[in-house]
């Protein structure tokens, strides 16, 4: 087993990077912050690969990959049973996740060396990226559910800092607030869920918690019989924990923050909102998978339907969006929906019961590669065109050849075309859905067609069609409404228009493209399953005909509509007028939220509460103060400065004392 010092170093090195760059970055490291930050993450990545190699190569006990806890430190003990013990847990999914997180973080760090060069707050950016890497690594390595919550909040904080990085832009500030508030609200559910589950299982440690909530025993019976509003507390706990996961993973209806989070710099979107943070919810459900799997709760149904609905909804919305990053954001939401509903397919099937777990984790793995690749390519495109809007882009395949190839590879991967990565993972997910719940399978199938369609819509609109006039000069770019573009666009004179992108930006593209091609060939089901026992993998077979066909149809439609600039898309939009308008406005969900918060919560709860606070609470205090002041004024009058008054008081006092003494002594 790997030496535990090296394992602890994996999250702690980025923490050190954050502290050093955060405190001293501006003064000492303003040029070299990027190299320091990247170096730290490089070492973490090497250690993570080493840990994965050792664990997956030598982690066998009794023929399966067991859970191994190398580090344990008792932080806070509430009672002999419940204590917050900071521990690191190594099992197939955590090992896979540290590899994914460090690798993608490393790619983003390298890419940012080129992308964020010349930024005034360069060191701050890298310190935030390191903070995020530390938090995410801590989250996936946490062995105690409260420790997960601590890192969960830290990840949310890093996301806030990074989305609001361009804090002089009000839209970015609003987006950061929105992300933080929505995820914080979801974390309320998470916390209540933690409290319910840990109170009944009398422990906070994951292994013990899962054991107590799945083996029949007095604690399990206790939590299952206790009920609130007719639903057992176990279901409540699991659903509330899922609510926390849904907020962080942008599941319907807590997804509203993700598109707005694209206000942050593009490498940040690649790292946080595509590959790592948004999958934290999936990871959480996977961590508690044995409990979700327990047949009596309906929690897995909730996971299943919410995931499927999010996948479909996001795909429909993505078909109408014109901002390249928003399309990718909705695509992320859709793919995470796939992962979620794969995790939820547990309730029904028999021997293939846990295929959903493997499939979700596999898709998480491959998705990280091609989604990060998509975002980083988008960064190159945006940098070139100085705008996020698809209407300003076109015919870029000659100007950006490498980006073109990488983007194409990523689009093929996400559409599920063999032999690229996305095919294998998506096929596993659809297989799990087919075994479990046929309607969800059909939703998944249709959504994969939509995925292929909107991704290739994006691809053809950007790289084919007529080259835009503005791709060669320093036009003001279409800074439409919610688009906005990054502040580092003022580097025209660095020769960025004659060269596609600096080497530091091209290298991650190439590496990730290789990943998007080959990641599907990893024998995942032999390595990552929920109980560690290897399962047989699935290759290309009869089952894959339907998804691939649907994807090819989607690609063909997109090519017909978008390969050549024409008015066919407009005619299609008119033909589907109602649905199109609805989808373009994101199903008005933001408006619903705005209505609920402004008209209902503010007016019915906020205003009365403010009134009570101002008038009653403050009024009471003001009243007390006024009474005291009145009394004080009255007493003040006694000190009149006149000698005769003082003499009078003196005499009254003497007379009073005399009377008292006479009264006492007679």
């Amino acid at each position, binding site marked *: 087993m790997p030496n535990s010092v090296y394992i602890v170093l994996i999250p702690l090195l980025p923490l050190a990077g954050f502290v050093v760059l955060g405190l001293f970055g501006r003064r000492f490291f303003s040029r070299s912050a990027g190299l320091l930050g990247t170096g730290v993450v490089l070492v973490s990545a090497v250690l993570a690969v080493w840990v994965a190699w050792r664990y997956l190569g030598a982690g066998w006990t009794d023929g399966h990959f067991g859970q191994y806890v190398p580090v344990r430190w008792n932080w806070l003990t509430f009672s002999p049973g419940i204590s917050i013990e900071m521990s690191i847990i190594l099992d197939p999914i955590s090992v896979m996740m540290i590899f994914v997180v460090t690798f993608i973080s490393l790619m983003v760090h390298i890419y940012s060396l080129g992308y964020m060069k010349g930024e005034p707050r360069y060191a701050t950016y890298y310190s935030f990226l390191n903070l995020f890497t530390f938090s995410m690594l801590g989250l996936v390595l946490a062995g105690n559910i409260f420790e997960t919550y601590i890192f969960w909040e830290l990840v949310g904080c890093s996301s806030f800092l990074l989305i609001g990085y361009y804090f002089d832009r009000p839209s970015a500030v609003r987006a950061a607030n929105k992300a933080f508030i929505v995820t914080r609200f979801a974390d309320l559910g998470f916390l209540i869920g933690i409290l319910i589950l840990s109170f009944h299982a009398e422990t906070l440690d994951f292994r013990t918690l899962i054991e107590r909530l799945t083996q029949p025993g007095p604690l399990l019976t206790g939590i299952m019989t206790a009920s609130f509003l007719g639903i057992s507390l176990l279901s409540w706990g699991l659903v509330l924990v899922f609510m926390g996961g849904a907020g962080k993973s942008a599941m319907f209806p807590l997804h509203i923050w993700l598109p707005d989070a694209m206000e942050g710099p593009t490498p940040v979107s690649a790292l946080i909102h595509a590959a790592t943070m948004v999958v934290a919810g999936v990871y959480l459900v996977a961590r508690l998978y044995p409990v979700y799997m327990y047949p009596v709760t309906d929690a897995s149904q909730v996971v299943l339907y919410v995931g499927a609905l999010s996948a479909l909804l996001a795909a429909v919305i993505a078909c109408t969006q014109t901002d390249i990053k928003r399309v990718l954001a909705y695509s992320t939401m859709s793919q995470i929906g796939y992962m979620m509903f794969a995790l939820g397919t547990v309730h029904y099937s028999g021997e293939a019961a846990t295929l959903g777990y493997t499939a979700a984790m596999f898709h998480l793995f491959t998705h990280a590669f091609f989604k990060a690749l998509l975002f980083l390519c988008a960064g190159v495109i945006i940098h070139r065109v100085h705008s996020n809007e698809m209407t300003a882009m076109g015919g870029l395949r000659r100007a950006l050849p490498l980006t073109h190839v990488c983007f194409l590879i990523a689009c093929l991967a996400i559409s599920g075309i063999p032999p690229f990565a996305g095919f294998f993972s998506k096929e596993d997910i659809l297989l799990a859905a087919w075994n479990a719940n046929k309607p969800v399978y059909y939703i998944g199938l249709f959504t994969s067609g939509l995925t292929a369609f909107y991704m290739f819509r994006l691809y053809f609109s950007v790289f084919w069609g007529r080259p835009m006039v503005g791709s060669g000069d320093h036009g003001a770019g279409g800074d439409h409404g919610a688009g906005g573009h990054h502040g580092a666009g003022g580097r025209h004179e660095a020769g960025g228009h004659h060269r596609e992108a600096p080497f530091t930006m091209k290298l991650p593209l190439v590496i990730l493209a290789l990943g998007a091609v080959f990641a599907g060939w990893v024998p995942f089901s032999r390595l990552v399953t929920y109980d560690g026992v290897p399962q047989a993998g699935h290759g290309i077979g009869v089952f894959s005909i339907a998804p691939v066909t649907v994807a090819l149809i989607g690609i063909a439609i997109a090519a017909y509509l978008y390969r050549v600039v024409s008015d066919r898309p407009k005619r299609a939009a008119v033909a589907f007028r109602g649905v199109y308008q609805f989808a373009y406005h994101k199903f008005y969900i933001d408006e619903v939220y705005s209505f609920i918060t402004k008209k209902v919560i503010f007016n019915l709860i906020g205003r009365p509460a403010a009134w009570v606070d101002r008038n009653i609470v403050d009024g009471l205090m003001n009243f007390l103060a006024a009474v005291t002041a009145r009394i004080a004024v009255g007493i003040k009058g006694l*000190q*009149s*400065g*006149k*000698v005769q008054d003082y003499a*009078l008081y003196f*005499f009254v006092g003497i007379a009073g004392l005399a009377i008292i003494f006479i009264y006492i002594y007679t």
Partner: protein
Amino acid sequence: MNQVPLIHILFLSTALFFVGMYGLLTRRNLITMLMSVELILNSVNINFVAFNRYLYADRLDGVFFSLFIVAIAAAEAAVAIAIIINLYRNFKSIDVEAADEMKF
């Protein structure tokens, strides 16, 4: 002949005492306040002499103490006049209500 009952003399001195006190607390003119203080001291003098005559007729302690009081009253009157002169110099008035600077 029958003596005047002691209580009559005590009434007199008490009345003088309270008249003096009333004058001290009420009059605005500093000189008049000084006169009231003298009245109080003299009422106490009457008390001393009366008790001496009626209770300890063969001794003179009370009368001696009255002499003390007279002497001290004189000294105190001198000091009081000096204070009044200082007050006049500061406030340009011998109205006691003019010297109210030590109020709140």
